[in-house]
Every structure is written in C-alpha cells, then in structure tokens.
C-alpha cells in the first residue's frame, strides 16, 4: 500500500468515527427519495400509461422506427457518419466509451478527489455528459424520416381481423400468402362493398361453389374486413384521361417513369408504397398528412371524379 493510500484509510476512518449511523440517518433520506420517485412514477403511469401502438406489421415499409429516448443520442450520432463508417458510430464508439469508463479509475489515479483539482477529468465529464444531452435534444427534435400516415382505423381493424382469422392461409396479397383463394389485391376494387359484405356473411350465397368457410362475423367485423380488402387494390381501372391529367398538373413537380421534374418525390412506384386512401387524401389536402408539405391542395381545383381517377392511376404505379 502506498503511503497516501494508508493516509487516506486513516483519514476515512476518522471521518467515519465522526459520522452518523447509517440507520436512521441515511436510511431516512433514502426512504424519502424512494417515496418521491414512487410518487412520480405512479403519476406518470396513471396519467400517461404505457402506449401500445398497432400490431407489428413486418410488411409496413413506411413506419418511422423511433428508439426509446435513451438510445436517441446514439441514433443522432449515427447520422453524422457516412454509410461506410456507420459501424464505427454504432458499435465501435459506444464499445470504446464503455471500456474507457471501466478504465477511468486507473487513468485518473492518485489521491486528489475534488473536481477542481482534477480539471482534465472534470472537463471531460462535462463534455461527455453535455454531448449526450445535446445529441438527445436534437434527436428528440429531428423530424420523422417518413411522413406520419393518417390511417383509417376501420382498415387497421380489418387488417387485425385478417391476421386473427388466418385468412393468409388461403389468400395471398400481392403474391404473399396461400394459393387456395384468389389474390385479394387483384380482386379488390372489382367488387362492390355490398358484394364483399354478402360474401363475408355467407361466401356460398354470392359465390356458388366457393370452398371458403362461413366466418360467423359480427356486422362491425364485416365492415372492417370489407374496408381492409377494399384498401388493398388499386380501386379499379382508370380512364385514359388520368395520365393526361397527371402530365398537366403533376409533372411540374413530380417524375413519372423518367418524365417530369424532381421538386417532389418520384411517383413511378407510389402504388407499391402507399394505399389508395392515403394517395387520395394526400392529393386532396397534403397538409393533413404532412404538415410541412409544399404541395398545393387539389380539392376544389379538380373534381371529385378527377381525383378518384388520378388516385386509381397512381395506385396502379407499382
């Protein structure tokens, strides 16, 4: 043992002698703080609860993954690194930071403990803590990668039913799923809502010879399922006017198969990324879906029929 370590032990022992009993002196303070923490947590739990979003959907490519807030600084740091160096920011730097933390007592050894007597380590600590706080702040404020999508709750309920009833066992959607029944993306839009509802009530009533079982659904469930199936397709054929309308009104900003401007996104495959309802709402009023969109609203500029036509045309672009 070095002399200063011996001296420290002596000094600490003296400080302990002068000190107070852990119980109740420290235990009282600990208990009080624990009580306050419990109160704050209870308030948060009762007033905000824990959110539960929609059921996980592995096919959803438009979702904005948001990590829990304590990972945000890492994600924010990730943005500063180009693709090839991403592994450095994502794994190597945090790993090095942990190793550095473990090694701190050996690098900052010696008896001096007051922060002002260890200017380098104090500055490093403030710099690191400040950096994490700043990155977290900017991470919280950074805009979402994908615009938040206004979802039709009925469509979402239908989608959940679709998975609960294991419909994909027989039906495929855009080629994914069973092969017993028809591809629902191809069927959607070719049948009316009433036909689909009658079909869900009793498949054989409208499709004689169908092997689909009777589902015994509630009327609301039939409505949900109908909304979902209708949302899958392109909404039926579009008129020859639709491409002309697009060329006249949209190509000023958007590209379609290599033609048009690049102020807005390329829409050549928009039908694969967005459902029909989303496209229609977006054409009518972009700000409803994406508040900072610079695209003008076409509601009023185009007739309802034209918007529907344009929607079907865009939904066909897959």
């Amino acid at each position: 043992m070095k002399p200063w370590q011996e001296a420290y032990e002596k000094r600490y022992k003296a400080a302990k002698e002068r000190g107070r009993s852990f119980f109740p002196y420290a235990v009282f303070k600990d208990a009080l703080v624990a009580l306050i923490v419990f109160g704050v947590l209870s308030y948060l739990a009762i007033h905000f609860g824990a959110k539960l979003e929609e059921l996980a959907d592995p096919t959803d490519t438009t979702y904005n993954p948001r990590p829990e807030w304590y990972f945000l600084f890492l994600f924010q740091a990730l943005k500063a690194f180009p693709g090839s160096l991403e592994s450095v920011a994502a794994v190597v730097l945090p790993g090095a930071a942990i190793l550095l933390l473990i090694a701190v007592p050996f690098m900052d050894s010696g008896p001096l403990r007051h922060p002002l007597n260890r200017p380098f380590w104090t500055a490093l600590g403030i710099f690191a803590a400040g950096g994490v706080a700043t990155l977290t702040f900017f991470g919280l404020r950074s805009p979402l990668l994908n615009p938040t999508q206004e979802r039709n709750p009925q469509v979402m309920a239908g989608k959940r039913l679709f998975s609960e009833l294991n419909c994909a066992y027989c039906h495929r959607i855009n080629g994914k799923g069973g092969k017993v029944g028809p591809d629902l993306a191809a069927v959607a839009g070719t049948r009316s809502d009433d036909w689909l509802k009658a079909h869900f009530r009793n498949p054989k009533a409208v499709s004689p010879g169908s092997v689909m079982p009777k589902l015994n659904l509630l009327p609301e469930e039939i409505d949900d399922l109908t909304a979902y199936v209708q949302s899958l397709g392109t909404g039926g054929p579009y008129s020859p006017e639709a491409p002309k309308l697009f060329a006249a009104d949209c190509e000023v900003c958007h590209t379609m198969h290599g033609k048009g401007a690049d102020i807005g996104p390329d829409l050549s495959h928009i039908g694969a990324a967005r459902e029909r309802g989303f496209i229609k709402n977006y054409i009518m009023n972009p700000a409803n879906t994406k508040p900072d969109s610079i695209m003008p609203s076409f509601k009023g500029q185009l007739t309802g029929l034209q918007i529907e036509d344009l929607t079907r045309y865009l939904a066909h672009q897959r």
Partner: protein
Amino acid sequence: MSASNDGGPRGWLYERTGVDRVWDALFARKVPEAQGWVSWLYTLGSATLFVFVLQAVTGTLLAMNYVPSPDHAYDSVRYINTSVVMGHYLRGLHHWGASAMVVLVGLHMLRTYFMGAYKYPREGTWMIGVLLLVVVIGFGFTGYLLPWDQKAYWATMVGTNIAGQTPFIGPYLKKIFRGGPEMGAATMTRFYALHVLVLPAIVGALIMGHLFLVVWHGISEPPTRAADADAEKEPGR
C-alpha cells in the same frame, strides 16, 4: 445491539442466525456525514435499487399475464392494459420505471464521477457499476420488443441491424439475437428469455457485488479541497 444471550427468544434467534451482527454491519455502521444538498446526492444509488426492485415486482406480475409469442403477445399486452386489475397502472409503472432506471443510474454515475468517488479503494465498485449500466441498457433493449407492436418491432429491427454492424462478429451476433435470418417467433422467445431469466441473474449477481463493496469500503466522504491539500503533502505519490 450486540449478541447478549439472556436466555430469551431474542437471544436464541441471535445465536442461531447472527441477525444482530448483520444489522450492526449493514445498518448500525457509521457513515461519514455530508452537509446540505450534497447529502441528498448520496440517495441516488439507493433510489436506483428501489426502482430496480419495483421493476422486478411489476415485471413478475406482468409476466403472469403475458404470452411471449408473436401470435399472442400483442393481445396479451392489450388484455393487461384493459382487463387485468390495475393492469394499466402496472404496465405504466414498468414502462416509466425503465426510463427512471436509466435516469437514476446516469445521475448516480455522474455523482460518483465528479466526486472522484471511484478512486482508491473503490475502483472495483465503479467497474461493477459500469457493467450494471450496460445491463440496464440491455434490459431496456430486450424489453422493448415484448409488446410486439409497430414500435417494438421496428426499433428491434434497427437495433439488431446495428448489432450486425459490429466488426467481424456482426453477422453472427445479428443471427443469434434474431434466432435466424429474419425477425419472428424465435426473436421474441430469445428476447423474453434474456429479459426475464438471463439479465435478472446477471444483474442480481452484479448488484450483490456492488452492494458488498459499498458496505466493505464504506460510503465515500464528500471531496474537499482541504483533504486534497493534506493528501498532496504525503510523500511517495
């Protein structure tokens, strides 16, 4: 309170279990006194321990109503939220408790860092503390997937992709975490086992070590410039 066998039931208990000596060592021990607001900084560690116990209790109660499979996880969490007695409160506590763990561990570490409390003879306490921080983050990461909602799924997708970026072992890590090339039922059972079996065992052992060292070395006294000046006079630094 020392062992005094007067023949009564208390003396009998002390002789057989030594609880009086345990009490003396843990609670009747003397600690250096800190003055004013600084003394409150010394409560951060015990507050962390308190929230950990809260997480263990709420987590156990949640596990009684939870099903770790992609087919049922979401519905079982919804069931906890809507139908289980106090389920909404319980899940809220566990959710916010996770954030509180990170906050308190962070503050506790800042206190230790800026007071230089990791110095001789408490280096080991500090190192175990850093490992505890890593395990707390591991709890957060594995727990996030369990509700199997959109947020859970996609955040874990991103997280396992990041693990896949590790030099050399990345692709294997990713496969081990996901239980295969894709995320699915195997990912979920893996994360569940890590969250409720593996990490609690590790954290339990680390906490025992951490607490033992805290008691063994005694709680560090607040640093003063006077004490530092005394120490500088020591020869042979």
